[in-house]
């Protein structure tokens, strides 16, 4: 197999990697906002349950969470995820959905903590300035506070999202046919090992892209903060 064949094979996997990455972001970001709000709830039980949940998810390996989500239904309920397969074919969507679920929950917890920090770091004076100028709560949040929160969370979010790029490789352990899985298949079937190392190039390139997007955003906002 030459470089082009391998690249094409890996690209198949990379598309799954990309799907996992973007779907995780798409679902985890709004969920994180809900988690962040709940973990700041003035109703104590809600706040405590939310914080305990976040603590547990952040305190255990994503790898373990993946296995729990994907294998528990089969072991405990005698109803394996594979039986849920929606399409037949090469991509086993059921495992993909299981892995996606674990990723979304895991990342929503990390993002929620970042959001919470970003919101709590806004000086009280900004809210008070809006209040004495007669602005409503929603005007205050959307016109004044939100951009400052975004600015606060940009650096930690950039970190976390680059981590997500690389964490997608963990999905291989639960038989999601992402890029790392594709490389392992080349080793298992064709006995060539170098594609495993070649995957690094894809991850690096993708991380570079994510970092560049965040740098651009940071540069744009730096106009307002010195």
């Amino acid at each position, binding site marked *: 197999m030459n470089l082009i064949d391998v690249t094409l094979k890996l690209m198949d996997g990379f598309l799954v990697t990309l799907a996992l990455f973007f779907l995780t972001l798409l679902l985890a970001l709004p969920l994180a906002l809900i988690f962040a709000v709940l973990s700041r709830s003035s109703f104590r039980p809600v706040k405590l349950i939310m914080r305990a949940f976040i603590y547990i998810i952040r305190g255990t390996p994503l790898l373990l969470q993946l296995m729990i989500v994907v294998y528990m239904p089969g072991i405990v309920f005698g109803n394996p995820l594979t039986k849920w397969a929606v399409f037949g074919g090469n991509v086993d969507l059921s495992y993909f959905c299981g892995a996606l679920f674990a990723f979304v929950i895991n990342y929503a917890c990390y993002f929620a903590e970042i959001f919470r920090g970003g919101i709590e770091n806004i*000086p009280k*004076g*900004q809210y*008070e*300035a*809006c*209040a*004495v*100028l*007669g*602005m*409503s709560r929603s*005007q205050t949040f959307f*016109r*004044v506070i939100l*951009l*400052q929160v975004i600015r606060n969370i940009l650096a930690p979010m950039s970190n976390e999202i680059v981590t997500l790029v690389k964490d997608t490789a963990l999905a291989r352990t639960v038989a999601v046919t992402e890029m790392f899985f594709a490389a392992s298949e080349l080793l298992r079937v064709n006995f060539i090992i170098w594609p495993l190392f070649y995957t690094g190039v894809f991850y690096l390139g993708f991380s570079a892209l994510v970092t560049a997007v965040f740098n651009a955003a940071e540069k744009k*906002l730096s*106009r*307002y*903060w*010195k």
Partner: protein
Amino acid sequence: MALLEVKDIKKKFDNTEVLKGIDLSLEKGEVLSIIGSSGSGKTTLLRCLNFLELADHGTITVDNKLIYDGDDPSFRDDKLIRKNRLNFGLVFQQFNLFPQYSVRDNLTLAAMLTASAEEKKDKKKLKDKLNDQADELLKRIGLYEKKDNYPCELSGGQQQRVAIARALMLTPDILCFDEPTSALDPELTKEVLKVIKDLKNSNNTMIVVTHEMDFAKNVSDKIIFMSGGRIEEYGTPSEIFDNPKSPVLRSFLNNALES
């Protein structure tokens, strides 16, 4: 009748009584300074006037209209508070400008958002009108050429002057200052105090919580000295500074003027 009448304002935080019954009145165009050591309740009083805190008891009347009664829960309604607090403006110790808006937009933002539905119909016209008003004010405080700059590009003194203009933009009946120069060095303090003096000359009614004794002496019509949540002494600058009656005020002035 006075422009502002405040009667028997009381405020407790947990179990600490911070204000133990404050009365004061202010005529239109007068400047009232509030002095006193930290923890005497000066800032809390100002915050009660601006409804950043809600007094537990007592009334606030502006221009013969009752705008707050601590014993009547209907005055705690969010919408009513938003409306009533516009009788007052407040300038903070830490300026609290909005970093993501230019100087001019800092002035126009609130007016833009709180405009009536009628005015909002023609956004362009409203924006032009507010920009003109803002430019007028910026010229008055000598910062017109900074109108497109962002707060982080200004000195502390300039930021505070913009904050004053922002408060004036909504034409409050009474403009309050919470230690407006405490975060500034002496040079910058001067330029801010000069703006406040100019405002007095154009007949603005103001309440200033301050540690600047010279300023209180030279600019105020009346001075309140607070201690332990009460008004310990009340009078004209010469009564307060040249002829203090209470021993607490005397020792406060000794300390303040020494340093």
